[in-house]
């Protein structure tokens, strides 16, 4: 008995030492070819299930950025590594992956996730654990009111709505609008924002109808709107419904302009609506119509280069989601560079140092626009970074703006 316990405790001690040793080696910083440490950035994206169409382009862009940064010498010699996790479009998993990245991988900054529910779940943890988070989702409330550790790269719903309303006021010179919105989260937020902001642009909402995301026919709601004084129709939704609405509008011989949301900024809308898509206008990022960016600007060069390398690498056209992913990665890596310049070289950058440098980002040219953050603004973009796109002959062109 005594012999056994003596042997047992020695074995236990050896095991403990081994475990501690392995852990120390494992969660330390990896050294690359004898030089500087690798900077790890956590990334949570929706790579499967409902939001994969958003997450996959974001991942593609981040991989491209990672390669570009490392090929150009990394972050002051430190290789950068994006540790990408899939949250399967479930907020509970977004939280889980965030925790995993921070606790197990020891990252001190996170990018993600692709959809609003997941990002909302992660921002709680980001604020609690004081980890800077650059969000990739759309809802305004992510950064309004401003939270200390949470930033964003996509434009807010507020900005997108204002871009559309500004177009109706200045270009179409109309006053009364009707809104047809998806009764889900995206559509309702759009409608609420339009309702709250219409007055600012001298517009009046004279009709508002909702529909179910999977409804097969919206002629009932449209006949109601047709019989009101509405001079323009704003449609806020995703999926097949906006294209069905475009066809219904044509069927009912409605002549008022159709202004969509950024939810129709994809080729599928044009495919499904066919001829009815022509004349439809919607707000979106300029990456979809690069010619809308002044020809010799840094911005244009950045977008053209990005679109080209994306197409070469992935054999498919770039889209706004890829742009948001790229921008988040760019802001993060530039902040890290600035941190080293300000505080000298470090093995590992702390969360608060990274956060402070992100917040100091000024006039950084990305894909969606020029990013400037401040203690009171964690949005980065401005309304003018967006354009109104018009569909003509089945293709996107810039709707001439004032």
């Amino acid at each position, binding site marked *: 008995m005594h012999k056994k316990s003596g042997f047992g405790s020695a074995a236990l001690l050896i095991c403990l030492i081994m475990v501690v040793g392995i852990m120390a080696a494992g969660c330390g910083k990896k050294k690359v070819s004898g030089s500087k440490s690798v900077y790890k950035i956590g990334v949570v994206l929706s790579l499967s299930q409902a939001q994969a169409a958003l997450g996959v382009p974001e991942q593609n862009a981040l991989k491209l950025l990672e390669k570009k940064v490392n090929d150009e010498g990394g972050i002051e010699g430190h290789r950068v590594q994006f540790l990408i996790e899939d949250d399967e479009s479930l907020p509970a998993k977004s939280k889980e992956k965030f925790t995993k990245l921070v606790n197990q991988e020891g990252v001190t900054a996170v990018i993600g996730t692709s959809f609003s529910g997941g990002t909302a779940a992660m921002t709680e943890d980001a604020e609690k654990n004081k980890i800077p988070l650059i969000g990739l989702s759309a809802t305004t409330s992510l950064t309004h009111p401003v939270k200390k550790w949470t930033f964003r790269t996509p434009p807010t719903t507020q900005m997108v709505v204002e871009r559309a309303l500004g177009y109706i006021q200045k270009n179409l010179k109309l006053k009364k609008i009707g809104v047809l919105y998806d009764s889900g989260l995206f559509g309702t937020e759009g409608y609420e924002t339009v309702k709250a902001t219409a007055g600012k642009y001298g517009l009046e909402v004279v009709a508002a109808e*909702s*529909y179910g995301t999977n409804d*097969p026919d919206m002629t009932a709601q449209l006949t109601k709107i047709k*019989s009101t004084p509405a001079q323009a129709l704003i449609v806020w939704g995703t999926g097949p419904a906006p294209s*069905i609405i475009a066809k219904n509008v044509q069927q009912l011989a409605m002549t008022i302009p159709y202004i969509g949301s950024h939810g129709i900024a994809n080729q599928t809308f044009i495919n499904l609506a066919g001829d009815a898509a022509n004349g439809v206008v919607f707000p979106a990022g300029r990456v979809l119509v690069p010619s809308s960016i002044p020809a010799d600007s840094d911005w244009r060069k950045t977008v053209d280069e990005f679109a080209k390398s994306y197409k070469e690498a992935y054999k498919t056209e770039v889209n706004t989601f890829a742009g948001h992913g790229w921008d988040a990665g760019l802001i993060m890596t530039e902040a890290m560079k600035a941190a080293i310049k300000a505080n000298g070289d470090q093995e590992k950058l702390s969360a608060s140092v990274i956060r402070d440098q992100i917040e100091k980002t000024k006039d950084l040219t990305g894909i969606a626009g020029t990013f400037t953050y401040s203690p009171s603004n964690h949005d980065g973009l401005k309304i003018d970074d967006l354009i109104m796109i018009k569909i003509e002959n089945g293709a996107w062109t810039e709707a001439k703006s004032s």
Partner: protein
Amino acid sequence: MALDSNKWAENKLLWSALAIFALVVVLTVSLNGSKGLQWILSGLVVGSIYSLIAMGFSVIYSSTRVINFAQGEFSMLGGMLMYTFATKAHVSIWLSFVLSVLVVALIGAAFEQTAIYKLRGSSVITVIIVTIGFSIFLKAIAKWIWGTDPVKIAPFTGEKAITIFKAAIVPQSFWVFGLTVLAVAALFLFFSRTLVGKGMRAAAANSDAASLVGVSTNTTSLIAWTLAAGLGAAAGIIIGPITPPSFSSGLMLGLKGFSAAVLGGLGNIQGAVVGGLMLGVLENIIAGVLPTGYKEAFAFLVLILVLLIRPQGLLGKPEDVKV
């Protein structure tokens, strides 16, 4: 005596319901003019699709007492296959239609043979749960093959809307109506004039007596599933140009079709038509008259009310429903 007064009472309920419906329709048009007519016309188109799907539910229910929760997915698959044949492979519309219907009918038959037949001794609930599993499986396969985006199916004969007293419907709507009429006629002839069809009705009424005269419940079940799958596929194809299908569009179709079937009387083909058309039209009138948003709840409300008040639906008989 008691039986007679029962019959009259049931018919009274049915006729009152139809009379109220007719009244609502007339009122809608007179109070809302061409707007009201539009609601009704559009409602008839969508309602026809509900009818076709309801017929699928009824065919399987009347022969096997099973509620097939994958019925909506049969429609979804019909539409997706039509996209693959007609839009992507550029096969002619008619050949694509026939091919898509055949493939889905085969899938229905295959499922019946591999799952339903094997469960022929089990309780109805078990089989229903298996159909739920089947619907999830079909959804996953569809997503894997076609992704998540909705797909384009070209209208059969053009897109320019036709105006009737200032209400407009697209040419595809006539194909929808035509298919519904064809389906009702074909099913009627099948069940009343052919030996196989009559055998199925016999098996539905009394399976033991039917087997005694040589009608096999197994064959009945197989034919029912094949028919329902083909019918569902046809519905999904014909509405495809109006409502682009996607891997998840089976749920809404199945739910509405089921509500329509229950409203008209589960197991009853004429009931499926009545239920479908009524549901489609009333949904649209509600969307037109009430504040926005109520339309979506209507089908569910109908389902709950019918099951509470008169589970056998408008045209069904009380003994049809064994709850």
